[in-house]
């Protein structure tokens, strides 16, 4: 049994395995599949409740993952923001002596969530420039009406 507390290294190793099997394209194919088949709860919350649905989704996951984060939502401004001070997943990978993290590990958060939210009309932006420090920022905006 692989406990959920050991999932992140298993996830990173899955990306590495797929990369060896078929390169970047194989990893991307899997991320797309995971987004399409495993994020129905985010899709439903964002569809029915908009930015507050994003808030609900990440409030549960980030608390369960014991993340170090600041999260805000401002419906009037049309903005939902996560400032990840210390990502629990990436930090665990960086601290794990026997695992070499998949080099583009953090990019899965770009692919998975963008693929859910942009077809619903949101603008999804992620800053991964500090992912080597296990830090990032996600901003979801409602697109202005034309």
């Amino acid at each position, binding site marked *: 049994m692989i406990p959920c507390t050991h999932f992140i290294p298993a*996830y990173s190793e899955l990306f590495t395995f797929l990369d060896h099997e078929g390169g970047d394209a194989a990893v991307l194919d899997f991320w797309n599949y995971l987004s399409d088949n495993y994020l129905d709860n985010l899709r439903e919350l964002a569809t029915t409740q908009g930015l507050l649905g994003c808030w609900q989704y990440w409030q549960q996951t980030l608390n369960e993952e014991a993340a170090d984060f600041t999260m805000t939502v401002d419906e009037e401004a049309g903005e939902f923001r996560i400032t990840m001070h210390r990502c629990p997943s990436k930090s665990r990978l960086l601290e794990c002596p026997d695992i070499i993290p998949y080099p583009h590990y953090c990019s899965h958060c770009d692919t998975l969530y963008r693929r859910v939210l942009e077809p619903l009309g949101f603008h999804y932006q992620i800053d991964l420039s500090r992912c080597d420090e296990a830090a990032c920022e996600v901003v979801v905006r409602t697109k202005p009406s034309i």
Partner: protein
Amino acid sequence: MTRLSIQRTAADNPYLHKDFHGALSTGIDYLQRIYGDDAVRRYLRQFARTFYAPLTRDLNVRGLAAMRAHLEAIYAVEGVEISLTGTEDELVLAVPYCPAVRHLRAKHYPVAALFVETTRTVYAAICEDTPFTAELLEYDAETGRARVRFSRRSA
């Protein structure tokens, strides 16, 4: 119009996100369908040989006491009471249900057909290059109830 803000540190919450079991099951299912059964086993073996390398080393130093400590720890995290019986040369693990399978069933997530390999392949891989082997004696795919025997290899 709602405005909300929240700030949390890692110390504010326990680390226990059971939905990760669903992502692993989805990954195993994907590997099987796209790359075949053998890919699932190769992936899980690679993961176990890498991530659990310290446990493999410990098995060579402390014997089955190391495996016992590992099993007690991982099932305690998931809140499952297990039974461990045996001697220095044999350890039998009895799990009343797999916490991952239970979570998947409760959330109506699909359980990958080869989810059993997260037990069979992972424990076997951990025991490679040690004096011990792992043998899956019993597994119920519906609940993940299982018995696994770790025993000293015959000379």
